[in-house]
């Protein structure tokens, strides 16, 4: 068996990223779309940490990028859930196909 290294971590991260992209494109439920976005953000975090460890192990820049990505994801989730609750109150559903007033 091969020694796990940077390449394997990058492959796992790419797989998680595109599972997230697939979920974002196919699910029509706003909450599961938001969960796909969280999956994408986590794959990017894994990439940052892997590069920090294998390319530049004495510095901490990748760790701080990940910390700020986590902070922004928390803020984004709070605002997005407020929007979803507001949408549910006015439309009685969170299907994105039902929220199409801005389209016309």
């Amino acid at each position: 068996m091969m020694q796990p290294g940077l390449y394997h971590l990058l492959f796992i991260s790419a797989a998680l990223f595109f599972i997230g992209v697939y979920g974002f494109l196919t699910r029509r439920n706003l909450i599961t779309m938001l969960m796909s976005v969280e999956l994408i953000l986590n794959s990017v975090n894994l990439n940052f940490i892997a590069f920090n460890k294998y390319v530049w192990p004495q510095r901490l820049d990748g760790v701080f990028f990940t910390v700020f990505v986590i902070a922004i994801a928390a803020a984004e989730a709070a605002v997005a859930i407020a929007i979803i609750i507001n949408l549910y109150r006015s439309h009685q559903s969170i299907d994105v196909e039902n929220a199409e007033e801005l389209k016309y």
Partner: protein
Amino acid sequence: MNVTEILFWILSALAIASALMVVLSKNPVHSVLWLIMVFFAISGHYILLNAQFLFIVNLIVYAGAIMVLFLFVIMLMNLNTDTEPQKNKWLKVAGVVAGGCLMLVFVAALKSSGTQQVQMGEGNIGLIENLGKALFNEYVLPFEISSVLFLSAMVGAVVIGKKGD
């Protein structure tokens, strides 16, 4: 094959399988629970990569706070398999093609890039002491700006989520 390698492969398989279940399961509550499994697997990878502080932060912020918020909202809206919106069959095909093509390009690009393995032995760079020193010396401005971001996000969430207008 030592313990670290076995843990690496187990965590990788767990992460990818759970991520697939997040996308494929019909019930949103099951999706949230599988997503928590993904976060646990990724946190395990952080420990293997010497980022112990991020392991704790990832568990507390993601699995503890954000996922509980998601779970509350799903239960508040009474979503289940019956209310899951019907999706177009062609949309699924388009998703597979788009995601698969992009992933193929990524994997091919990664394969042709030779990565040298420089694994450092010392494992205390990700501990809280070093992190705190760097955070309050080099990264103090982004740190304070992120607190302003949180304040504005909190105000925005309260204003948007308020009943009536």
